[in-house]
């Protein structure tokens, strides 16, 4: 090996001057790595600072198009959708189950509150999740023995619009995996 072999030299003495240099070197070293990292993390965490859109009543269908059979029927929800820089007008942003009993209409989010699969309906009007077999009554209530932490999320129906024959639903998604209904 050459004269660069380090073992021959004693480590530098730890006098005050050296100590100060060490502190300074570490401080500068930390700072110069921190600046680009902080800029990057700020950008990465940007979604946390963006507010989710307020849930609004969206027109789903006419009352006449909904069979009065007290069974759930799936309807698509159409709204303008913003995806980062793009704005797509009138996109199918999701779906709801509607169930009509004469003048009363109930609406449910189609997503299973367990882990977010699209639930199916059975002939008797109950719901079943195809992923982990959670089952729900036709009122959306959780049937014991299911893994879902809560029943299906019922959505608010605009009663004033309903009287005029229009089904409007406050379309909203909720966080999966908890027994609480927390807007997503």
């Amino acid at each position, binding site marked *: 090996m050459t004269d*660069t*072999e380090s073992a021959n030299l004693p480590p530098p003495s730890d006098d005050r001057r050296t100590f100060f240099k060490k502190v300074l*070197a570490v401080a500068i070293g930390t*700072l*110069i790595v921190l600046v680009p990292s902080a800029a990057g*993390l700020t950008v990465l965490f940007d979604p946390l600072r963006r507010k989710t859109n307020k849930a609004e009543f969206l027109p789903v269908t006419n009352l006449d198009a909904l069979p009065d059979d007290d069974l759930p029927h799936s309807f698509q929800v159409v709204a303008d959708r913003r995806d980062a820089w*793009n704005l797509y007008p009138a996109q199918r942003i999701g779906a709801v189950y509607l169930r009509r009993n004469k003048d009363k209409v109930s609406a449910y989010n189609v997503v299973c509150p367990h882990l977010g699969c699209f639930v199916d309906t059975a002939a008797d009007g109950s719901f079943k999740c195809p992923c982990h077999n959670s089952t729900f009554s036709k009122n959306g209530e959780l049937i014991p023995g299911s893994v879902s932490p809560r029943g299906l999320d019922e959505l608010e129906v605009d009663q004033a619009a309903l009287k005029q024959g229009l089904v409007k639903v406050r379309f909203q998604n909720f966080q999966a995996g908890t027994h609480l209904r927390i807007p997503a």
Partner: protein
Amino acid sequence: MRKALLDWLDDRTGYRAMVHSMLFENIPGGSRWRYVWGSTLVFAFAVQLITGFFLWASYSPSSQTAWESVYYIQYQTSGGALLRGIHHFMAQAMIILLALHMLQIIIDGAYRAPREVNFWIGLILLQIVLGLSLTGYLLPWDQKGYWATKVATNIMLTVPIIGPSLQRIVVGGAEYGHHTLTRFFALHAGLLPALMMFFIVAHVYVFRRHGIKFKEPKRAADTHFWVDQLLKDAIACLAVLIVVIVLILWRGAELGAPANPSEPYSAARPEWYFLFLYQFLKLETFAGEREVLGAIVVPGLVMLILFLMPIVGRWKLGHRFNVAFLFALLLGVVILTYRAVAEDRSKKDYQAAVEMAQKDSERIKDLANRPTGIPATGAVSLLREDAYTQGPKLFKAHCASCHRYDGHDGTGFVPDPVKQPQTATDLKGFGSRQWLSGILDPKKVDSPNYLGAAKLKNGKMVKFVKKDVPDYDKNDLAKVIAALSAEAQLPYQRQQEQLDVTSIKDGRQILLKADPIRCLDCHGFAGKESDEANTPNLTGYASRQWLIDFISNPGHERFYGKKNEMPAFGLKKILDEKSIAMLVDWLRGDWYEPGQPAAAPTTAPTSAPATKPAP
């Protein structure tokens, strides 16, 4: 407990010896500022890796989303301008640091035996950095990167035999598109950084095998890397970072208008560190088929000489040759770069192109920020359908051979009065009160800006204005002008017109009474036909629809009929409907303004549509 754990870790990994050998590397002759450049380069690359990763997490490589996602990072994401700025300027700093590192290595003779291999690894790293610059330049998919990279990939065509195939592979097809971006991105964020990391590890490994080639004579006692040299390195890195931050605050990373293959871009230039090569290729020596000499052979020879330096440098004279060659090379680069810049400075059309490019890039920022967002077809369609952007270009191409707009051709350029004389009306503020007052002014009506440049100079209208108008009551005339101008529904007069509802109503009645103000003797208005044929009907005069109809077919009997001399732009399919509408909107000052969804500038359109409204 802690010690036991660390002892175990050291036993299994030997990390203590590694850390020790890293920190206590010997620096013969003491720490020196001239040794810092290698460390600053490692630092710069680390910063590029960090910022590059975060940019990657927000970037979307396709021709409809690349510019859009970079726009989103730069202008919509907090911290985005800083992040992109660091990546943008650190890349350029790396080029300078590379040059400094190479200067120090060659001047100090650190490239000679036993360090030849490491010098060669360094040359490979240089190539990789240049490759990263070249591929990164395209990724924002703006006009500048698009056209500059087009030139670079066309240079590949000069490579004998395999050139065309090579180019097609790199571009991902015959045309630039989605696959150009995915390929460049894969190179920029995948292969090249991986190679870079591999060669940096090799570079540092071989460097440590032979140690620092210290500068003779030794100025001080030997020391360790930790802490004296490391502190100097850290301070140098900090200085680099400060320069980068200052550049961000001063200039910011630019983002031009989105790439548009149908839009000429005369402002295209490579990044400053490639300007010398660009200027070199302008030399006549490399005209035509000889391009390959300038683009491939000469740079290849230079690289070969650099590569042979460690062997040539074995002799004292050889080392001197190497140093002299390096300085000659640098001098050549500086001279060529200077000439490239100086030549562009003296070119008026280049300056105009740069100004136009800046205008477009400012405008697209406002358009993309509209509440309606960017359509799925990409931001480029926003500019293509924007009256403010396209109006001047359309006017220049189709109208300025006869008309003027505030004395120029729409884009701010004043045509030569001999080669391209004005033979028709100046259309700035057409239909506005000011314009109508001008054409009804006996002193102005036969000036070139109204009817003086056209055949109409000797027509009835000029005679009428000169003879009859001086006798009219000034108040009545003003009301008639207000009423006629209201027909145009100009956005910039809307506010005023809401205040003047009564005088506009009065003016209309005076006009319809046709006495004493006798416009309707010759012109049709509000359902009343005139006896005189071939005169423009004043119903909806200068309104959007009126102008669209007029430009489409000025020879229609509603307009000039048989007397018409202007091309029928719509009827003859010279311009499509969209272009005519954009031209009309621009003439009428009817375009989107930031903060005003309905688009209505409060003042008349300025002469040069360049002026950006105050934010």
